């Protein structure tokens, strides 16, 4: 936390390349992991998301508040960039009909789970990834996604139920 604040202050002093690279290296692996899950494992789209998120984050970095963790703030930026893109593409964020999940056939439970997460409907996937994988609370998710906590909880239940039926 203190390290993050020092990195942010160092960057804001001169917007130097080295200061940015330090921020990038500290937080991009988490952003990329999140982006990969939100895009269903599409590496190209995940890299685009990470890139656009950093552009947005640097534009707004002065508004970062020290009381929140920088990583959570950055992940929030990424989630919102992702949702903005979905809206721009006129895609339906919450798929009304749930498609049956493909049964995983890999030997590794984690691979099965990753594959199953990728097939979740967008809304349920966002909440599941943020809550069960990245450790966000329903309150934080509600703030990030602009939904009420009850919706976050119901989406999580929905996601878990879909995953239970999909996993061997």
């Amino acid at each position, binding site marked *: 936390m203190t390290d993050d604040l020092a990195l942010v202050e160092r960057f804001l002093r001169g917007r130097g390349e080295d200061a940015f690279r330090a921020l990038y290296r500290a937080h991009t692996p988490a952003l990329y992991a999140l982006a990969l899950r939100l895009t269903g494992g599409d590496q190209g789209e995940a890299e685009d998301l*990470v890139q656009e998120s*950093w552009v947005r984050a640097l534009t707004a970095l002065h508004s970062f508040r020290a009381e929140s963790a920088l990583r959570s703030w950055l992940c929030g930026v990424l989630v919102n960039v992702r949702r903005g893109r979905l809206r721009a593409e006129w895609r339906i964020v919450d798929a009304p009909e749930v498609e049956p999940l493909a049964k995983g056939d890999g030997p590794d439970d984690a691979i099965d789970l990753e594959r199953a997460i990728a097939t979740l409907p967008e809304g349920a996937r966002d909440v599941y990834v943020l809550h069960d994988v990245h450790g966000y609370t329903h309150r934080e998710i509600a703030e990030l996604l602009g939904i009420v906590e009850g919706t976050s909880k119901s989406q999580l239940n929905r996601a878990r139920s879909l995953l239970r039926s999909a996993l061997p």
Partner: protein
Amino acid sequence: MTGLPRETQPDPALEERLVSTLVAAGLVRRRRAWPVWVAAAAAAGIVLTAGVTMLRPKHRLAPGRSYAVLLFEDATYRPAPAGHDAERVAVLSRWADSLDAVGKFERAGRLTGPGPLGGLFIVRATDDADAARIAASCPFTQWGGHIEVKRFDE
């Protein structure tokens, strides 16, 4: 919690692409293209310390551009006998004063730490040839060592 990894390393090329994008957007300032010797000095932990560093120009600078006159205390350099460092500083200061009188002296510094680079003068010269003439007039090489001149951009 799922226990799935919360971090994944992206392709290293992403960092370079992103930095270029951010520089182009004016959100990040590109690292200065310092001469190699500055990077080497930084890597070696060399710091500017007092010594001839106290020299400051007293006269208005002549037109031209800045050059770094770098003093290398290499294998041929003969260090001052113990207690005689000040005499060498005085000799170099007089040389700096003579440059200053014609508006060609900007500042000077002593470099300490590993490596042969022992000091530098930032001087004002009309062109590369003028800078070379100034460097050739520096009394430093009477003690051995050698001098290199580089264009210096702030």
